[in-house]
């Protein structure tokens, strides 16, 4: 397959339209220790397996779940050292926001900026993508939020999610037991008319149009 010939360079697309290095990074994540998060009506919980290579390791020195701000925490699956670098960068970004606005950074903004850092490392020379996926849990003015950020820099908001080893089993379990409604529109519609104002239709409006079509 032509793909393997393009797996050496991060910044080259393969003929099938993939960046193979990012696929490999996701594989590194997939073989990391399991971590998961669940969003409730009044909070978020994140957890991870803490399996140490030997019983002689001082487990108090290992901290896999870290605080980014007083109201935002993060857990990972994948390479620990990469995670430490991201935590450091994210904390700095959160503090810079606070210095400018004297307001705690909203969860979405911090996730967006962390994802932007991860994306930078997929489009620069001489670097490799981060070998971690993050689960960011936070509570701000918009309520409890849970985000997953991938090595490619894409991020998703989840009601419940799992990463790392055995992720398919974990997700099946969450889907079955989770009490929320997992339904959603899988289409997005934006519209611009003679008023020259671009706007995105709300799910309710999309539902109305779909009902008409039927």
């Amino acid at each position: 397959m032509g793909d393997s010939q393009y797996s050496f360079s991060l910044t080259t697309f393969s003929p099938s339209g993939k960046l193979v290095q990012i696929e490999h990074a996701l594989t590194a994540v997939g073989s990391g220790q399991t971590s998961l998060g669940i969003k409730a009506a009044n909070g978020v919980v994140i957890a991870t397996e803490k399996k140490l290579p030997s019983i002689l390791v001082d487990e108090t020195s290992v901290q896999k779940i870290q605080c980014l701000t007083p109201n935002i925490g993060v857990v990972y699956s994948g390479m620990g050292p990469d995670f430490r670098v991201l935590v450091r960068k994210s904390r700095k970004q959160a503090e810079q926001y606070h210095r400018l606005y004297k307001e705690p950074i909203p969860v979405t903004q911090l996730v967006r900026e962390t994802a932007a850092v991860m994306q930078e490392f997929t489009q620069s020379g001489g670097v490799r993508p981060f070998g971690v996926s993050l689960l960011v849990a936070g509570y701000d003015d918009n309520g409890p939020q849970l985000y997953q950020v991938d090595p490619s820099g894409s991020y998703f908001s989840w009601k419940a999610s799992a990463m790392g080893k055995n992720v398919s089993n974990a997700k099946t379990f969450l889907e079955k037991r989770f009490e929320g409604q997992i339904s959603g529109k899988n289409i997005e519609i934006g519209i611009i008319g003679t008023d020259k104002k671009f706007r995105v239709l709300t799910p309710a409006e999309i539902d109305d149009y779909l009902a008409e079509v039927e």
Partner: protein
Amino acid sequence: MSIFEYNGSALVAMVGKNCFAIASDRRLGVQLQTIATDFQRIFKIHDRLFLGLSGLATDAQTLYQRLVFRHKLYQLREERDIKPETFANLVSALLYEKRFGPYFCQPVIAGLGVEDKPFICTMDSIGAKELAKDFVVAGTASESLYGACESMFKENMEPEELFETVSQALLSSVDRDCLSGWGGHVYVVTPTEVKERILKGRMD
């Protein structure tokens, strides 16, 4: 003559009951010569946040453009309007960035915050914030304005009474300052509406 007195200006903001008023004079001068009598010193950032800029007119205009730029990006990114206290911090940070080559402006910020609580503040040209519960003033007529506001201000004024008070304070103060005047521009902002009024005072 100081650079802050080159164009001449008068600005005042006052807190009322669930409302605020922000007012300015309308003169634009080049030292002793009057160039314009309809110069705008108060700008709307969003429906519940107004910014007045006194001092050098060119810096006031540029600073306003930069702040509107920042706010538009903020609105797009955060999908909400900026709070007045947050905006004040942003202005302060922006001004201090130019600590050793500052904007020759003194901003006055007035807005309705959470639960429609009025917020006013002013700062010097390098971003030292001054919060107040009653009124803030800026410009070449500031000394007269301090006196007028101090004596005319009452707590919890309704919008109509607040308008009268602010107008009287402004007009009487600019009459004592040769570099500001030629009428007044008053905005009275409540949670439901913004009333903009032009005052006719001594046209000199």
